[in-house]
């Protein structure tokens, strides 16, 4: 691990100034950054500890029904905030399906957005990786392809964004509030993470010194509370990153779908909003056929970045299943195994 200077600013302005210096990185919960430092994958020369900025630690209800979540709110505290979880149940379920209780107790909202990819070659300093070391190449190409993107990838990088939390957030039109050297700005979460293009080393649109201060969900997002789920396929039941995942939220009236929100995780370098799939569902009656059509629309542009296209079909099935579970209704409480694809769909045959 590279050594660094450690600073602990007391105000947002001080944090932004300290973070704008070359080589600086913000430290929040540290659950991703410390891991990256230990692997020598990031070598900041200054850590700007933002955990004492108390004003970033609040969950505020906004007039009209939206919510503003401070960047330092811990993942566990947000998931277990009862008013929040009942208005945005898919977000709570996604949070509780991520990492472990210990990690969730430390991990923050801002850090979760800015966690880096879990591409195994990114994690191995001996491998070529354009995202970690620009211009060196990409050893993931031609690999076994288990974690590769199927949407929005480029020749330079085929990595995926690992966050669960971001998937329902992007489905529900979350907005990121940013403070920076040039003042404040807001970016829709859908435009916050960058697709790799020819500059995969830049994960997000943040400029040096720019600090995420909050994430906002608009009032309309709560209208989906009765039919909102997150579903996550993993290589083991718990404490694993998503192979593919989906958030599905429906607004239903008189047994029909009025509006739908769908996003996918584990398929691209950003949480992937599937608007074409939402259009298929608006005005439809909820049934397996229309869910499958929506799933096909969601993956219509998908193409494998390696020899294995299995994940495209896995993603379709996770979208269709998440829709079926959402249509059946949000459970009163996040299930014992959050986001589990093994949970039966109420009313459906156990075997098909």
């Amino acid at each position, binding site marked *: 691990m590279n050594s660094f200077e450690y600073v602990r600013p007391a105000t947002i302005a001080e944090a932004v100034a300290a973070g704008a210096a070359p080589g600086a990185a913000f430290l929040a919960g540290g659950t991703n950054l410390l891991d990256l430092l230990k692997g020598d994958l990031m070598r900041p020369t200054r850590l700007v500890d933002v955990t004492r900025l108390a004003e970033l630690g609040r969950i505020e209800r906004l007039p009209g029904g939206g919510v503003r979540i401070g960047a330092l709110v811990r993942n566990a505290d947000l998931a277990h905030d009862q008013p929040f979880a009942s208005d945005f149940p898919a977000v709570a379920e996604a949070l509780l399906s991520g990492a472990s209780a*210990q990690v969730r107790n430390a991990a923050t909202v801002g850090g979760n957005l800015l966690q880096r990819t879990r591409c195994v070659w990114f994690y191995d300093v001996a491998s070529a990786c354009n995202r970690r070391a620009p211009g060196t190449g990409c050893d993931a190409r031609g690999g076994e392809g288990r974690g590769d993107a199927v949407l929005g990838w480029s020749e330079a990088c085929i990595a995926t964004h690992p966050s669960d939390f971001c998937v329902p957030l992007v489905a529900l039109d979350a907005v990121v509030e940013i403070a920076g050297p040039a003042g404040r700005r807001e970016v829709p979460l859908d435009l916050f993470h960058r697709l790799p293009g020819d500059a995969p080393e830049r994960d997000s649109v943040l400029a040096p010194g720019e600090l995420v201060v909050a994430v906002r969900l608009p009032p309309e997002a709560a209208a989906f509370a009765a039919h909102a789920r997150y579903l996550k396929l993993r290589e083991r039941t718990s404490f694993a990153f998503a192979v593919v995942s989906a958030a599905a939220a429906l607004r239903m009236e008189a047994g029909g779908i009025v509006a739908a929100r769908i996003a996918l995780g584990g398929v691209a370098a950003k949480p992937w909003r599937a608007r074409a799939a939402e259009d298929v569902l608006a005005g439809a009656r909820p049934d397996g056929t229309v869910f499958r059509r929506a799933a096909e629309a969601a993956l219509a542009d998908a193409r494998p970045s390696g020899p294995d296209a299995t994940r495209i079909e896995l993603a379709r099935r996770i979208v269709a299943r998440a829709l079926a579970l959402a249509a059946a209704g949000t459970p009163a409480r996040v299930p014992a195994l959050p986001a589990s694809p093994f949970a039966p769909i109420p009313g459906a045959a156990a075997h098909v």
Partner: protein
Amino acid sequence: MSLSISLTVNGAARAVTLDDPRVTLLDLLRERLDLTGTKKGCDRGQCGACTVLLDGRRINACLTLALACDDADVVTIEGLADGDVLHPVQAAFLAHDALQCGFCTPGQIMSAVGLVAEGQAGDDPERVREGMSGNLCRCGAYDGITAAVLDAQRRIAEQGKARAA
């Protein structure tokens, strides 16, 4: 900024001057404060062996920068028992044979103490297993661990009721 911090460890105030900013809370406990009960398994947040309570919440000490713990309250496995009287979670681990080699046990016990305090699992074994999934056990003592956590939780609730009465 100086590398001096003050924190409370197992109820005692400690002032520490670090020789290096890179020290984690885990290395501070084990190598500077001689509290070797907290174990280092993976050093990457993946196994839970390093679980301690930080301001009352279970976290991975290996992913926590010591400097960030200025003013914090830390409880480790060494701080659980009351003299010779074991903490109910410790007693339940013994009663249920919830260990074999014991390497994961301090982390399992601290995690269980955190889980009981969080109050989210209730008496549902599935929720207990899910809530303990951040603690791996290479010996596979999971059945005993789940039973011990459920039992300890029951005893702690009864103690609480007895005290309130």
